[in-house]
């Protein structure tokens, strides 16, 4: 058994928001992170607001040229969705190997973002896509850029009473993309490091480059210094190696020397360089 708590299960967003504002709750959706965390405790000093029964938060749609993913969409929902498959294959690839099928069937994109684990598989591609999160409370709504929403590992700037409703982004303009995940094994692995990249190559020249690593920096966000190194140049293995080296250097600058640095330093360089090669088609 888990530690004791009371549970409320609202069926509409409005009901959830007023209940959330009135009590001392933590929100549960898919539960794949929350239940593991609660199991570690002997007792907890909060109740549980289960939002998994709110159908409105579970849709994936395109409106006004933007893709809107409801916070309760599971990894499986995203993976199987036609809009995602057609317009954002990068995101599809990133969620493909998150956890196991059992976990992908329950774990939600909203939960993945709000838990803010540095190893979250959906975050680097969504940051690469310049995604925004839409938050609601009884007091109103606000929209925040995802890379500003997650402030540091396991922390967001979500305010009291706010619920993450959806994630919005424009379909990317790119000629190639890649999500590189490095785990300790093939199945059921939590990302040790990952990186999402997108390239837009026109007339043999890289017009736009996006490099968004996960579990590498103490914050989520793109590595613009490495992206600038690529833009305006012709794609080549040597260039991509330079970009990898840049990311590796910035990682050390931002995170400092840690016990894992000796390993991470050459590996992130190689991961970035390979991902860029895949995205450019210079490696298959």
């Amino acid at each position, binding site marked *: 058994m888990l530690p*004791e708590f009371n549970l409320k299960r609202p069926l509409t967003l409005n009901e959830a928001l007023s209940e959330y504002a009135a009590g001392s709750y933590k929100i549960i959706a898919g*539960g794949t992170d929350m239940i593991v965390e609660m199991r570690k405790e002997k007792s907890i000093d909060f109740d549980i607001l289960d939002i998994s029964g709110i159908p409105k938060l579970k849709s994936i749609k395109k409106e006004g040229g933007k893709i809107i993913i409801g916070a309760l969409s599971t990894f499986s929902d995203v993976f199987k969705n036609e809009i995602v498959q057609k317009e954002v294959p990068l995101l599809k690839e990133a969620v493909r190997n998150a956890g196991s*099928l*059992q*976990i992908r069937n329950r774990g939600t994109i909203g939960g993945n973002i709000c838990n803010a684990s540095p190893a979250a598989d959906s975050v680097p591609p969504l940051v690469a896509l310049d995604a925004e999160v839409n938050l609601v409370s009884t007091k109103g709504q606000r929209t925040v850029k995802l890379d500003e929403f997650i402030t540091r590992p396991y922390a967001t700037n979500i305010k009291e009473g706010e619920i993450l409703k959806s994630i919005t982004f424009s379909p990317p303009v790119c000629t190639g993309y890649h999500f590189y995940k490095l785990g300790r094994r093939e199945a059921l692995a939590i990302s040790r490091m990952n990186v999402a990249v997108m390239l837009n190559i026109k007339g043999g020249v890289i017009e736009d480059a996006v490099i968004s690593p996960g579990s590498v920096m103490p914050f989520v966000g793109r590595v613009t210094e490495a992206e600038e190194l690529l833009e305006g140049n012709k794609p080549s293995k040597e260039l991509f190696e330079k970009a990898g080296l840049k990311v590796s250097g910035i990682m050390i600058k931002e995170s400092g020397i840690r016990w894992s640095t000796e390993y991470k330093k050459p590996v992130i360089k190689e991961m970035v360089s390979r991902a860029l090669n895949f995205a450019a088609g210079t490696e298959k």
Partner: protein
Amino acid sequence: MEKLKINFKLNGKQIRVECEPAKTLLDLIRDDLGLKGVKRGCEIGECGACTVIMNGEIVNSCMVLAPQVEGSDITTIEGLTSDESLHPIQTAFMEKGAVQCGFCIPGMILSAKVLLDNKPSPSGSEIRTAIAGNLCRCTGYKQIVDAIKYAAQLMKNE
């Protein structure tokens, strides 16, 4: 703590229970409802021994709160057939020697069932992906993959 009334379908039968919110679906099925085919393993979503089918998809029942199954359709290994007969996947597992200690088998078979329901002729790699969330520490998986391939044939001949 305040008990909650939960209505859901378990192995084809509509049921109504009252339970504490801090129970997981695993606790509810095994301890309250006495279906011991659902195994309690790691309880952190890594081993898949507690796998059940929820609305046509496999889930780890250790990571679902009992109240979250309100209105759902749950199938456990006990519900695979309506009588005492074996499901073709069970037959295939026995004939191919895919069962050793047996602890992972209920979950493994349910994962195989959802796979075969959606994909009647899966490739080896599709089978391995489908059971990636179910750990087996005895067989080394080869016999299990063979059994699922064989089950696909049996189900087609039915």
